[in-house]
């Protein structure tokens, strides 16, 4: 058994220290070591986006990042999107626009959409579709997801 490495990182604004094997992905560390199961595994090879998290301000697929790479980084997962018990406008828009069916891709979509709106506050439909193209959804056909992001953009600009 390979030895474990101590990793010091920040997750959802909280200082976290954990031990991981060199072969463990950040996704596996989040879910199985730290217990944050909101981040989902859909493919484990970077193609579905279900495991999307934010790392130092950029969105990454956590299955393609090693746990040891989290050292010194700031990570935001789906559990860190709401402000306490108050939902983020993107979360509220997903609910109101019925933008989820089974919900397994939803955490990844919400992390990606929040990042989109922080970078492009008033995106066109094409910009939304382009930004979210690394997040697969098999249930909705994307229509209501695009509408939810458009809705959230309006609400965030009004705020």
């Amino acid at each position: 058994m390979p030895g474990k490495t101590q990793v010091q990182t920040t997750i959802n604004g909280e200082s976290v220290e954990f031990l991981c094997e060199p072969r463990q992905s950040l996704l596996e560390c989040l879910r199985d070591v730290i217990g944050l199961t909101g981040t989902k595994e859909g493919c484990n090879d970077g193609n579905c986006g279900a495991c999307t998290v934010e790392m130092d301000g950029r969105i990454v697929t956590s299955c393609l990042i090693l746990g040891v790479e989290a050292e010194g980084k700031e990570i935001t997962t789906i559990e860190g999107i709401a402000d306490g018990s108050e939902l983020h406008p993107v979360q509220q828009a997903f609910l109101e626009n019925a933008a989820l069916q089974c919900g397994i891709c939803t955490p990844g979509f919400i992390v990606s959409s929040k990042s989109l709106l922080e970078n492009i506050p008033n995106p066109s439909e094409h910009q939304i579709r382009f930004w979210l193209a690394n997040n697969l959804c098999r249930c909705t056909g994307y229509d209501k997801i695009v509408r939810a992001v458009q809705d959230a953009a309006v609400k965030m600009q009004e705020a």
Partner: protein
Amino acid sequence: MTSTQYERNVILSNVDYDVVGTRPIRPDGVDKVRGRALYAADFDASGLLHGKVLRSPHAHARIKSIDVKKAEALSGVMSIVTGKDLPKSEKDSDRYARENILAGEKVVYKGQAIAAVAASNPHVAEEAVSLIEVTYEVLPPIMTAPQGMEPNAAILHEGLTTEELGEKTDKVSNVANHFQHIKGDVETGFSEADCIVEREYNTVTVHQGYLEPHSATAFWNSDGRLHIWCSTQGAHPARDATAKILDLPVSQVRVTPMEIGGGFGGKIPIYLEPIAALLSKKSGRAVQISMSRADVFESTGPTSGSNMTIKIGAKSDGTITAMQARLAFEAGGFPGSPVNAAAICVFAAYDVENAQIDGYDVVVNKPKSAPYRAPGAPNAAFACEQAMDELSQQLGIDPIDLRLKNSAKEGTRRADGPTFPRIGAVEVLEAMKDHPHYSAPLGANEGRGVAIGYWFNIGFESSVSISVNADGTVSLVEGSTDVGGSRASIAMQAAEALGIPMEDVYPSVVDTDSVGFTAVTGGSRTTYATGWAAYEAAQDLNAQMIERAASIWDVDADGIECVSGVFQSKSDPELKMTFKELAAQLADTGGPLMGRAAMNAGGLGASGGSFAGNIVDVEIDPDTGKTTVKRFTVVQDAGKAIHPSYVEGQMQGGSVQGIGWALNEEYYMRDDGSMANTSLLDYRMPTSLDIPMIDTVIVEVASPSHPFGVRGVGEANIVPPTAAIANAIQGATGLRMNNLPMNPVAIMEAKWKQNG
């Protein structure tokens, strides 16, 4: 691309309700947008072990030996199982079911499970699996139905004999079943035709593509009871299937359904549950197994590839005189393709005097097929609806008019026997014809296609209980796993029947010990059947509430009525109580009340079924053959849309799966029977960038059998897209694409062939 606004998109509805037809936020929504909803792989148990499965590298081989000694010796390995750990099978059908869990003497598809290991963590389990030594005698693989039907084809199962027109024969063959539906006489019908179209069509294997890989955890306790937490479309069916595989009474298995990350039919069968159970029994610990994405592609049921011939004859005025289909479907490694459902649906949209349908279920060396959204019907529609398009062109009749002229309606008898109750095929076609999309101008290299499709909507068993809380809310317990918002649609029907707000209904999906038998979330049945059970449970509760009000007021219960959630005396206007007021008094006036319903909501076609139609515009790049879907409209009969947003969601989701099936998706098979594209990079499902907004029109032709007129809407929407897109491609290029997928390579090859 510009954003398309919704038209007023619900038509023909003539009944208004308080709750039904509104768009509340789903009860499980907040947990799902916060990452708090627990799916199967999120489950944890004390002392949990992790399992991995050894899978066959060959599509067709005899297993000579399995040696697990090296794996057993690896530190951290707790238990190992093989097919020998399963009970012996008396009947062939039982043997097929068990060998699809863990192989016996043969493997019949690449990816078939052979052995499994439970270990302290998944990495150790994976190492151990790689240490298991298996020797094989490799056999030639059969990859398509026509190959399997050849006279000298390699045989998958030496004991499999053909069932021919309902009779068991002794003919050893890969053809498990040949059946026939006959109405009238097709020879006579074709002799009366002025115009006949006859074509052969092929579709390839595609996968449901749910984003959540299968996962199951099992704990076989010391009292003999087995508890399973898994991702399934039906807890009771998963319980019963697991019990049958392990030869246990159903009462000894308890299944807790976790949230389910998509299924589309693919999570009706079980795969991991019995394996995890056996590993748990041997180790005394809880064992969790989760599939990889490659496992999902290679080891779970995709839907069948198919080879189909369609022949349609019509008079010059457009009257269809005869329709004939020959449908040969790949079952995968064991018998049981959806060819029966394809035969029900292939000509269901049409009222024709003479029809004949021959169906063949053929075993091939691919994963055992599983249901995929309207199983078999999209294949059949790809064939029939293209032939109808050709016929309309040859007759010079508008394609929607030709369909309207021959449309099935109430009283039409289908070739497979049943007579339709009230259905909405005509209304769907008329809505398509009236839609502005149908007459909008097309651009350069663009074409427009239409098609319609049918799915029959099963009934089956559902159980619901509703108990009253002292604050006037109710807790609703149901057995239907919620794969796309059905907690909302079921709670809404209970709320409507009780006359209370939907927000006052708290629905829970519970384990098999906690609710009566409930069939799968599948066959478009959940909002229909479990919603109906919720309605009946609400009626049961209302009757008890009336009894209680009667005893409080010391009057006869017959003199009390419940109107929109208010209990009132029919004669004395002073005697009046809201649901909330009565709820608060229950504890002191005789105790709590609970309504219940346990029912069978009918068989196949319980609601009469649902029709869906598409209008599709595509643009073909003349240099690359790439198809871009420019505009897509889906029209579907929902009977009554309980929650219109989730009805639209079903329509849009099914449409986009259909677009993927039409243009890209395919099991790309190598000659040795292995799949070359087992990742979501290479198995190319539509991304958000590939498709436009999907416009929806909900048609409401109330089902005569359901209290609110509901027709299940989950499936019919995936039936027409492949044909509608093929017809649009023909419109743009003149090319008839008789094979799926219609990817750029296929279109360029067809173009070069056309140009000589």
